[in-house]
């Protein structure tokens, strides 16, 4: 009976050990993180630039083209990943575990959900800039999840990605800066995590190596920003003239027009909505409190500007509009009155990170 008991014990132990072995098997191939890092980094950095010309045909055209690019590149990446993984596994005569298949399905569900929210948010709610951070946080969670079934190094890198994503969201950098920072973290992270993996043999190494690849990502972001700035936002030495002078002559070509401090700019306000019978149009004069230089091409503003002779910026880079107060006043004589206060200005570029 004693022998039988030992047999039962050892059988139960070996069953438990084999079940654990079977469930452990998530293995990331060497191509996986670089492939996805480069793919998502490329999409983050260039999708808008690639689809910008199509947006001139209309918003729906531009958005459809943008979605088309994203889906096409993702499809190519999926096929590449599938083929390379199958090849690598066949070469080593290995299979893909059930847990890896299931986790992969969960990852795709997470990203599909994020993509749908991304589309919805951009189309109807705005605030697309925050989604860069959301994608970083999601990718971090995915790496942590993969790390739970494979190696602690991935968990560390996942945590770094989550923290980067949260920082990107809360630092409130301009859209262009956030875009390039996110792209850089994805690209450098994808390659760096794979290259540094053999060195990450203990907790201290994991920590220092995570900081190292993040530092490289930030440096790359600065370089990308400067290249992007040099290519896109660099009016160079153009003839500089005042607004009245420009209005009077209306010259062809590219010119820098200066609005001196105290210039009056007429702003037309149009309020529409289902609660009003007619569109309300009203005009008011806003006075500039700083000197503003604007780039004009053939009589039209290009969207490139600078404040007080500072750095040249793009229209969607560094301008913000924030609603501060929203309340309803009920006056006995005049009746209900809606009050809204809007702040329109140049954003503080926190820490001058990419300047």
């Amino acid at each position, binding site marked *: *009976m004693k022998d*039988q008991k030992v047999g039962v014990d050892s*059988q139960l132990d070996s069953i438990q050990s*084999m*079940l654990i*072995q079977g469930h452990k098997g998530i293995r990331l191939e060497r191509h996986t993180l670089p492939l996805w890092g480069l793919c998502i980094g490329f999409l983050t950095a260039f999708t808008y630039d690639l689809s910008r010309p199509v947006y001139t045909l209309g918003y729906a055209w531009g958005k459809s083209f943008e979605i088309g690019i994203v889906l096409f590149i993702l499809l190519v990446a999926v096929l590449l990943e599938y083929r390379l993984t199958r090849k690598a596994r066949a070469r080593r*005569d*290995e*299979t893909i575990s059930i847990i890896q298949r299931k986790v992969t399905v969960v990852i795709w569900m997470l990203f599909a959900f994020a993509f749908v929210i991304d589309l919805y948010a951009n189309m109807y709610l705005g605030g697309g800039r925050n989604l860069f951070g959301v994608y970083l946080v999601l990718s971090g969670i995915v790496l942590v999840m993969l790390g739970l079934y494979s190696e602690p190094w991935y968990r560390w890198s996942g945590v770094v990605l989550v923290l980067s994503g949260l920082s990107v969201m809360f630092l409130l950098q301009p859209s262009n800066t956030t875009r390039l920072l996110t792209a850089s973290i994805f690209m450098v992270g994808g390659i760096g995590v794979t290259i540094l993996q053999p060195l990450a043999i203990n907790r201290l190494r994991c920590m220092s190596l995570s900081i190292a690849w993040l530092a490289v990502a930030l440096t790359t972001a600065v370089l990308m920003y400067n290249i992007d700035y040099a290519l896109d936002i660099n009016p160079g030495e153009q003839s500089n003239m005042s607004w009245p002078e420009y209005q009077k002559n209306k010259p062809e070509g590219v010119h820098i027009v200066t609005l001196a401090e105290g210039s009056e700019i007429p702003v037309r306000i149009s309020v529409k909505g289902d609660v009003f019978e007619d569109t309300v149009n009203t005009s008011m004069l806003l006075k500039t409190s700083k000197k503003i230089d604007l780039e004009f091409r053939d009589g039209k503003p290009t969207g490139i500007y600078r404040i007080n002779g500072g750095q040249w910026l793009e229209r969607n880079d560094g301008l913000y509009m924030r609603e501060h107060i929203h309340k309803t006043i009920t006056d006995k004589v005049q009746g209900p009155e809606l009050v809204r206060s809007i702040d329109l200005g140049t954003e503080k570029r926190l820490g001058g990170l990419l300047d």
Partner: protein
Amino acid sequence: MVYLTDSKKNETLDAILHQPVRTRLVAFLAGRGEATFKELKELLQVTDGNLDAHIRKLLAVKYIVSRKELIDRRNQTFYQLTDVGRRKFQEYVKSLQHLFSMENQ
């Protein structure tokens, strides 16, 4: 079938599964889903002939099935548990647990 008896109850253990290598092989497949011959050999630390013999026994009673796939002009064989194999394995584990609890009473 192997019959193990004690004073309280007769307990039946599946003779195919009640063998250390086959138990471990089936338990691994239950957790992993499927595995190649090479993976099983490395995990169980047995010779090709030994593993082949165990696999034949499991295939004969349809506890596992094999499928072949051509990857890069090379035939690869995968083994996975069948529904019968999974059910028999669950019954086997229950029987072991039952025996274990009886031994500890």
